[in-house]
């Protein structure tokens, strides 16, 4: 089996799963309980939070656990809207965001909020000047993803941050779900950022757990009200086993990060170099440093993306049609559409997404199968 669908999800690491199980068995008390079972669970939780914070050079108080990336995006966006609606009801985002961002904003639009969707260029990147032009007196939030999940484009976070330096009251949210463990931190983190969203299952952690970073001093309304966990910001009994497992997964993901990214870079280069030699192939991802090392999006013209996916699947090779989240609904790729890729090409697009466990041998096999499939289509057309 060759698994090239790591942007959809990653396989949980064995030792991470072991942590999940051991914490479930040993520290199963409710961290809010006053007795020692609660104390121990609380300690476990605090240690995990400290580790996550220190790995990313944040303060423990700036880490809030969520159920994953979608909750994080929903929370920062709706939480900002609720918290700051008296100051303004305008939000700026890009036209290539994940559905968790876009659909949260659609909900807010129904409530009367105004949203500006910034256009992107052929590489899927916004122009900071457009952002500058879009800022209004009543803008309360700018939400920009760090790494695009469909084509791997890295947005110009620092340039955006420099513009927002002049508007200190605007919340700056970065969806960094695709960006961890890829040696991109210096490109996607800026001190001006107020909120960041992360999800564990994108870095070999368990499903159903994630966290947001909320810069000290910035406030959003809770989305989930209740017993007052997470400093009253996010209620619900803490998922101690998943949180501890995530802390471990994050540590592993950041260990040897640059070497891992280098490996993925090589595979990406191997693939893109080969794709360039084929006719009737359009490549949407770049080889430059402003693309993430692990995502390659391309179209084999003349075949629908899902056909290509199934053709690969027959050889036990797994990839996806752009975003896995929207692939079952049959909608064409949001990102490619925003990049003005014609519909018939966009529907042919597939996405290869790598991680550090993939090997050059796997890529060689992939390329052989790709050639066969490509040849087959060429004949048919």
């Amino acid at each position, binding site marked *: 089996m060759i698994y090239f669908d790591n942007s959809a999800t990653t396989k949980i690491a064995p030792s991470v799963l072991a942590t999940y199980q051991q914490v479930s068995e040993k520290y199963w008390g409710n961290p809010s309980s006053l007795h020692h079972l609660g104390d121990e669970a609380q300690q476990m939780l605090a240690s995990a939070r400290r580790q996550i914070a220190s790995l990313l050079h944040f303060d423990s108080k700036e880490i809030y656990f969520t159920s994953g990336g979608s909750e994080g995006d929903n929370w920062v966006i709706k939480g900002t809207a609720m918290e700051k609606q008296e100051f303004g009801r305008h939000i700026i985002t890009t036209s290539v965001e994940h559905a968790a961002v876009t659909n949260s904003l659609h909900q807010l639009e129904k409530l009367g909020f105004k949203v500006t969707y910034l256009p992107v260029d052929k590489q899927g990147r916004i122009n900071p000047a457009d952002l500058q032009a879009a800022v209004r007196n009543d803008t309360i939030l700018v939400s920009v993803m760090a790494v695009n999940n469909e084509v791997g484009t890295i947005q110009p976070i620092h340039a955006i941050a420099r513009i927002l330096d002049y508007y200190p009251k605007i919340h700056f949210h970065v969806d960094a779900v695709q960006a961890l463990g890829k040696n991109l931190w210096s490109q996607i983190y800026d001190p001006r950022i107020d909120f960041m969203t992360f999800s564990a299952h994108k870095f070999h952690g368990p499903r159903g757990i994630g966290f947001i970073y909320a810069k000290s001093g910035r406030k959003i309304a809770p989305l989930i009200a209740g017993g007052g966990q997470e400093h009253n910001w996010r209620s619900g009994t803490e998922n101690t086993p998943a949180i501890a497992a995530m802390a*471990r997964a994050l540590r592993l993901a950041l260990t040897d990060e640059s070497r891992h990214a280098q490996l993925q870079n090589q595979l990406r280069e191997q693939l893109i170099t080969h794709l360039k030699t084929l006719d009737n192939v359009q490549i949407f991802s770049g080889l430059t440093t402003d693309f993430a090392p692990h995502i390659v999006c391309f179209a084999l013209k003349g075949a629908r993306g899902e056909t290509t996916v199934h053709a690969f699947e027959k050889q036990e090779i797994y990839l996806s049609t752009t975003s896995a989240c929207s692939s079952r609904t049959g909608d064409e790729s949001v990102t490619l559409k925003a990049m003005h890729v014609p519909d018939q090409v966009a529907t042919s697009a597939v996405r290869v997404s790598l991680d550090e466990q993939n090997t050059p041998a796997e890529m060689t096999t992939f390329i052989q199968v790709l050639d066969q499939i490509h040849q087959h289509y060429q004949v048919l057309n």
Partner: protein
Amino acid sequence: MNYTEIMVRYGELSTKGKNRRNFIDRLHGNVEKVLHPFPQVRIHPKRDRMHLTLNGADAQQVMQRLQGVFGIQNYSPSIQIPKEMAAIKKLALQMVQEQYQPGKTFKIATRRADHQFAYDTNQINLAVGDYVSSHLPDIQAEMRHPDIKIQIEIRLDGAYLSSQTYSGAGGLPVGTAGKAMLMLSGGIDSPVAGYLAMKRGVEIEMVHFYSPPYTSENALFKAKELTARLARYAGRIRFLQVPFTEIQETIKQEVPAGYLMTVQRRLMLRLTDALRQQRNGLAIFNGESVGQVASQTLESMAAINDVTTTPILRPVATLDKTEIIRLAEHIGTFDLSIQPFEDCCTIFAPPRPKTKPRLDKAREYEARLDTTGLIQRALAQTQLTEIHSEEHFLESENTEMVNLL
């Protein structure tokens, strides 16, 4: 730079006349305690300064430990070389170059303990200064406020060069002022009071009241953890935990709500004073700040202080809360102090304590209690532990947990 020695200059010691020997011995002992992890370091206390021979220990780590020792004015890491002018010049230049940027000025300052040395102080200053200038033609010498100051000491056993001087903690060596008790609650103020007491050379012993099951074990651990933080300034601190449950329950039954707090504080002070006497302390320190809460109005202080004539010192009495917090942050106790564990002060707090309790009433209500019996029983069950700065009591990183992460 490969430093071979750290030169420590004393603080106020130099003004202390005949007590000098005592001060230096005490400082020697305190430095020895904090350098316990570096057995290879040799300490040579001299009349006007202390030389620490590193013998391979890491200068940065040693200096970090010195940072917390009271009685040190400043210290300089230095390098020992043979007493040869060529070597001295070369090293001096190297030290200047390490800090030099265009526009910076320098000075060579020599002290000569070895009067047999071929050159006198001025000759050395001139020769080394000339050598530096000839290699860095743009550098200016500046005698009053140089940016770079190279200190050269010619001693019997060699030449010592240093280019950096770091400020120490100041104050007086802990222990030189005698011993006192500190009433440690676990809040923000009392650890700061303890720090200030130690800064003036007082050796403190912690008195902590705990009331299980009204207070959790974590409240006790927090007090101990605070003690460990403060032990960085003293090497180790003794911690007395005094059971207070019976006293609190009795007071609650016998005393009207408005005077609960006043009588409770009187009993705490009586206990502390009894412990002070047992342990040969001279005074009592606490973290009271005038007017901060009901028990800290002048009326309250008068009604509570009534139980003893022992000096009660309140180092933060006139500080604002923000000033106290700044100090707490500086000494690293703030984060701990604000952790929310019920302590014995908050748990029996009446809804409306008297802010202006009357002394006669306080005495009258206290007289209803079997004070002697209560105090005797509490003292009998008081536990003494010694707490070192490396110890952890609260949310210590449990290795089993850390291994899971």
